[in-house]
């Protein structure tokens, strides 16, 4: 019996060895170059990134690039620890609003001179590229992809409530919220993420700028109005208070479970969820519309996305920069973003394919980039961000009125911006 168990265990381990893909399978045969490691937190997009590495490894023999997945929380922690210990990858990926902090901590090298020699910086969109700059404007990396936010509507629910088209203005949006909210069945008009981390801030920013408010003037009447609009959604029962505990994935789950008619949704959710994980769940007609327009015609979304930078102390720095340039050529950026379902960071990449204009869903996001605002860049963005989501949560939970919450946020943000203003 024991022998049998042992044989089974050996067979299982041999099988599992056989099934595990080796580095050579994923990143191509060893080209004899210096091993270069990339750390990233891509999940659904990992295959697209691995493909770029493989293609590059086959193209040259200076470096052999491999990519390692590290969960987002862990990755952020490792960069911080790495800033002290020096144990950093050669190339690191980072969420765009966090880049300024890591540049300030010395995690990413200044590669502006090399990138200028490359001569393609002018093709990049200003917002994403600016998120790679330090407080003096020097560039420390390249943006890889962009995304923004729009409203995802369950059209069947809207139609059942007597509304034929997805809401475009704030007035229509609020009317649709009212019409589709059904407390008896636990259905809300709207769902969003207001969780206490950067995701919460990300989803709050469009509302702030739609009303004419801004991070730099967080206690202005316009900014207070943004807090008020969201607070009213809760007070009137159009949105669940649980939004304060929902990440963007949780809010999407609520929408997919038909607990909400409309959702503040991100570009990546098309490829990763609507076309993949919840493909079979969503049996109803749905449509994307840009974030609602305010009465005076103002409209806003928020820029998200990831950047890659060459870390301080990287082996073969020049070759790492060359890899970044390769990864972000117009063609590669377009190919990658199409595969991963994201928006390109360069104008000439968008022109290469009709992917972002032919698909109605992507078109909404692509158009929304015209009025999407960046977060920062600012080295103390995490502290600013905390003040923003804390104020938002205080209003949503009914702990503070909009004006008090905004004033409290200003007490944190204003001194920071006085010392180092936003660009």
């Amino acid at each position, binding site marked *: 019996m024991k022998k049998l168990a042992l044989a089974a265990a050996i067979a299982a381990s041999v099988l599992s060895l056989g099934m595990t893909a080796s580095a050579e399978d994923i990143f191509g045969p060893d080209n004899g170059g210096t091993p270069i490691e990339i750390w990233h937190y891509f999940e659904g997009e990992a295959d697209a990134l691995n493909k770029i590495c493989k293609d590059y490894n086959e193209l040259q023999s200076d470096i052999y690039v491999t990519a390692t997945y590290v969960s987002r929380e862990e990755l*952020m*922690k490792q960069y*911080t620890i790495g*800033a002290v210990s020096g144990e950093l990858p050669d190339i690191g990926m980072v969420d765009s609003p966090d880049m300024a*902090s890591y540049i*300030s*901590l*010395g995690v990413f090298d200044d590669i502006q001179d090399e990138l200028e020699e490359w001569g393609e910086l002018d093709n990049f969109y200003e917002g994403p590229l600016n998120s790679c700059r330090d407080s003096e404007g020097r560039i420390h990396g390249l943006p890889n992809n962009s995304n923004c936010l729009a409203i995802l509507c369950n059209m069947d629910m809207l139609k059942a409530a007597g509304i034929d088209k997805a809401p475009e203005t704030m007035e229509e949006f609020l009317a649709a919220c009212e019409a589709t909210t059904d407390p008896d069945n*636990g259905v809300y008009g709207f769902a969003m993420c207001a*969780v*206490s*981390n950067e995701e919460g801030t990300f989803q709050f920013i469009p509302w702030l700028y739609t009303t004419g408010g801004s991070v730099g003037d967080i206690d202005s009447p316009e900014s207070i109005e943004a807090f008020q609009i969201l607070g009213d959604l809760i007070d009137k029962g159009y949105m*669940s*208070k*649980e939004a*304060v*505990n929902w990440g963007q994935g949780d809010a999407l789950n609520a929408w997919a479970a038909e*607990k909400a008619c409309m959702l503040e949704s991100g570009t990546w959710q098309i490829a990763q969820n609507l076309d993949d994980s919840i493909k079979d769940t969503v049996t109803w007609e749905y449509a994307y519309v840009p974030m609602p327009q305010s009465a005076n015609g103002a409209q806003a979304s928020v820029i998200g996305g990831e950047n890659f930078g060459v870390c301080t102390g990287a082996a073969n720095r020049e070759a790492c920069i060359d890899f970044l340039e390769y990864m972000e050529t117009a063609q590669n950026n377009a190919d990658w973003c199409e595969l991963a379902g994201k928006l390109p960071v360069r104008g000439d990449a968008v022109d290469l394919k009709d992917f972002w204009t032919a698909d109605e869903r992507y078109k909404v996001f692509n158009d929304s980039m015209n009025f999407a605002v960046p977060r920062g860049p600012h*080295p*103390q963005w*995490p*502290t600013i961000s*905390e003040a923003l989501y*804390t104020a938002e*949560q*205080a209003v949503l*939970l009914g*702990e503070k009125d909009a004006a008090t919450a905004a004033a409290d946020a200003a007490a944190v943000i204003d001194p920071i911006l006085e010392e*180092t203003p936003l660009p």
Partner: protein
Amino acid sequence: MKRATRKKMEGYIFILPAFIYILVILGYPLIYNIVLSLHNVNVKTFASGTDVFVGLENFKTLFGDPTFRKVFRNTLVFTFGCLFFQFTIGFIFALFFSQKFTLAGPIRGLVLVAYMMPMSVTALLGKNMFDVSSGVINDLLMKMHLIQQPVEWLLKGNTAMGAVIFMNCWVGIPFNMLLLTSGLTGISPDIYESAEVDGANKWEKFIHITLPLVRPAIVAVLMLGFIYTFKAFDLQFVMTSGGPLNATDVLGTYAYQLSFTQYEFSKGSAAAIILFCCLFIVGLFYLRMIAKEDD
């Protein structure tokens, strides 16, 4: 004399490896942390090395910050809340399962499953169980007609703290039961028998025999419980992220947030030092009690 000195030297050599271990593994990070807490290292000064010595400024700032005071109060409420419930219930369980009845052993073993579970799993369970719309707790309470509307457990400060204490007790009760049971089994049945001969009733036996004899185990369980609970991190981090609005933030999660989310390394270190000092005092107290009992 010479021989005595040699003997003494031998003693020191024996403790040298342990001393070096403590110095490297505990001493270095602790001292580094103290140094950090006395400077102003943050995202602006870190890479440029422009941080300066600020003395106790970080501690002053922390105690002047209403959020930190709230976090400190939370830590105390969480710790004493957990200690009270997990000790009381754990003790009752220990007394109950020390009775000789069929299946007493296996059931006691089953109760321990909660203790063996990783805290992050317990925290995730808690997050789902206390969910407003789909949590099993609200579902049960509604079905039993104890509540009419779902309770917003993790959306209100007090109930969120209650929920976190509940989940911690889930793990803490078996832990308390385990230690107290071993204390109870150490009491010789002869003592109870002779007390019975002298005419003692159950209550008298508990007060005059069980409690005094199990006292070392009680002290140990309370002290260890205090240390484990006071430095809590993973439960709050996963279950509530310290929310809503810092209502369940404790020193551990707050220090982490300062250092790793906001890159306020010095303030984070200061918060960690305050945490350490509280535990150090309790630790000293515990060591003194053990030493007294050994005497």
